[in-house]
């Protein structure tokens, strides 16, 4: 009995969004889809991972191609699609490739945005659904736990998730490095366009104070301010607004700079050089570049933020290589474990047979033992038990350790014959008894 693992799925790199949006299990909160897939007779354990970027069925199965085909057919029938529609986009990974794939996905090495942290939660979600639907077993349990462990190792031992890779996150990170905790800081938007709103959204989620909007047309400022629970200020009070703000996002369509060096110098004097972070996402620029040279002013334009983001992505890619090595280590540990699995039923059978002999012999001598008091009977029980344990200890550790030995099947065979293990009524030990350490 060897373990067969398969991953059938598609993701952002193999399938276009038109296919990905059709094949999804996200509307399956009670795990009925997981159950229906696990009902396949060739499948012993199964879970479904479904995110906006990937759908994957992870199964422990009999290793037959027909079972794989049935699973794919079921994907088609579940979504009422023809199999030809998506067959080309599917990947099928088996055994160590499947394990590697699962570990890479959990560690976010296969994500669209390398190192993003959400995927681990999504994997855990799929696993939780499967265990609620009772479609998991010892092998899938271990696969998942080792996957979570790999993800944790990759996260703590590499910097793959460390640096921000989107402009909005880079801006928030910078704001924190300049101003510390953002909770009590105030945000000023100059320009009421859609760009300002987009850029500010992530920042606003970090602050408590209501934001201020300044715009050439006061009405538009009012509209955006009411959408974002802030207040509007007319353009001629800009300097006043600058003296109280900590983070400023400018995005007007103006051709001339709105903030120039001389008036910013005045503002800084009034602020007593309290630091201010200016984010200029307008093209042409709203803030004169020389403003950056004033003490306490930190000016970043959209290109600056973009280049930080892409530098950080480059760093993540280098760190990802180190992550791959960690995953590789974990895959080989897992594969070693699966190999010890085929010795487990033999070991259990051996133990059970000896225990059976012991109890039946004790029962046979029951009459003679009856003279003994309880303490002495306990002692006899203990002695026989420890003799058995001492005898089987060496053979069992030998069988466990011959994990990679080419002759292991021979050894297992010999053990079974020597002790006549499968002739008695010993059940062929089920997988349920394999402990999941």
């Amino acid at each position, binding site marked *: 009995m060897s373990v067969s693992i398969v991953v059938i799925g598609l993701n952002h790199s193999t399938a276009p969004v038109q296919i990905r949006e059709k094949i999804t299990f996200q509307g399956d909160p009670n795990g009925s889809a997981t159950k229906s897939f696990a009902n396949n007779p060739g499948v012993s354990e199964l879970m479904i991972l479904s995110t906006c970027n990937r759908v994957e069925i992870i199964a422990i199965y009999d290793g037959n191609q027909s079972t794989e085909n049935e699973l794919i057919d079921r994907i088609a029938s579940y979504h009422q699609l023809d199999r030809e529609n998506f067959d080309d986009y599917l990947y099928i990974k088996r055994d160590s490739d499947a394990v590697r794939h699962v570990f890479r996905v959990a560690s976010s090495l296969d994500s669209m945005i390398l190192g993003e942290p959400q995927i681990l939660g999504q994997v855990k979600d799929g696993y939780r659904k499967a265990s609620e639907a009772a479609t998991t077993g010892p092998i899938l349990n271990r696969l998942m736990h080792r996957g979570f462990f790999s993800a944790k190792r990759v996260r*703590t*031992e*590499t*910097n793959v998730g*460390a*640096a921000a890779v989107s402009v909005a996150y*880079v801006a928030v990170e*910078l704001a*924190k*490095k*300049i*101003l*510390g*905790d953002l909770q009590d800081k105030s945000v000023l938007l100059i320009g009421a366009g859609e760009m300002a709103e987009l850029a500010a959204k992530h920042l606003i989620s970090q602050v408590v104070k209501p934001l201020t909007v300044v715009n050439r047309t006061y009405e538009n400022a009012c509209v955006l301010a009411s959408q974002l629970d802030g207040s509007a200020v007319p353009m001629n009070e800009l300097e006043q607004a600058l003296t109280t703000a900590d983070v400023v996002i400018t995005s007007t369509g103006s051709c001339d700079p709105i903030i120039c060096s001389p008036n910013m110098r005045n503002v800084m004097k009034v602020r*007593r*050089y*309290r*630091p201010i972070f200016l984010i200029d996402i307008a093209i042409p620029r709203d803030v004169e570049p020389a403003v*950056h040279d004033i*003490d*306490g002013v*930190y000016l*970043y334009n959209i290109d*600056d933020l973009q*280049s*930080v983001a892409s*530098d*950080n992505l480059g*760093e993540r890619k280098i*760190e990802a290589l*180190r992550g791959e090595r960690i995953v590789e280590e974990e895959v080989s540990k897992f594969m070693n474990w699966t190999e010890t699995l085929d010795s487990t039923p033999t070991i259990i059978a051996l133990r059970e047979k000896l225990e059976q002999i012991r109890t039946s012999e004790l029962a046979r001598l029951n009459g003679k033992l009856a003279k003994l008091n309880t303490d002495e009977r306990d002692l006899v029980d203990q002695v026989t038990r420890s003799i058995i344990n001492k005898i089987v200890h060496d053979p069992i550790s030998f069988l466990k350790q011959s994990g990679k030995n080419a002759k292991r099947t021979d050894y297992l065979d010999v053990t079974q014959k020597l002790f006549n293990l499968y002739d008695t009524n010993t059940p062929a030990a089920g997988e349920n008894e394999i402990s999941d350490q």
Partner: protein
Amino acid sequence: MDLLFFQMAIALYVCAAVAYLVFLILPEGKRVNVAFGLMLAGFITHILSIFHRALFSGYFPLTTLFDAVSLFSLLIVGAFLIFRYHEPSPIFGAITAPLAAVLMIFGTTLSYQIQQPVVPILRSWWLPIHVLLALIGNGIFASMAIAGLMYMIQERLIKSKKIGRLYRMLPSLETLDAINRRGLPLGFFFLTLGIISGALWAGSAWGSYWSWDPKETWSLITWFVYAAMVHQRLVLGWRGRKAAIFAIAGFVLVMFTFVGVSAFLGGYHSFSGVESFRGMPRL
């Protein structure tokens, strides 16, 4: 044998320094805990070394420059261990551990023999009070200088838009400025107490509170510099880079007053260990 604990503490600080520096090159992991453990072990051994010396000499060991340097580095490491709970960034360790190690190694070049019998004036309760107050003040000024240095680096990185690993590792400008903001009045307070306690001690021992000994003069200069700093910060609203530069410059002066004055200018503050390389008789 008499320096065994001290040398063990040095070895542990050096190991902690190496561990922290390795950490700066390699990505996050368990190494920080290892470095922190080494630091803590060094701290404990260091305390033992001071106790050992106290038992050996029979009173609070503060009569030599060696002892003052040892206690000073102990205070710095202690401040780091407490501060670590507020700001776990390992970069503080990467600065504190080498600093402590260097100070201690400098200490080993000084004579640590205690002259027997100890001059009567040093057998006074004023000794530990005066020295501890002065050293706590110095320790706070040292932390401000370290924060100031980090502020200058972080500020330059952000201004020049070099957003990399060092930038992520260094604390925020606000945190670093807060160390300066909170440390300044506190350090100034202890410096003032240190000077007053010294004057009172002198008054009770010699009947004269102030005698323009070089150490007294330089302490007074230091006091005026920090008084100016407090004024600039509180009244003129200096902050950030200016305050950081001031903290670094002030600490250079503190170190000169602490070590340099005894070594080059003499006076009755000369610690008994220093004369070996000055060849001048002390009080």
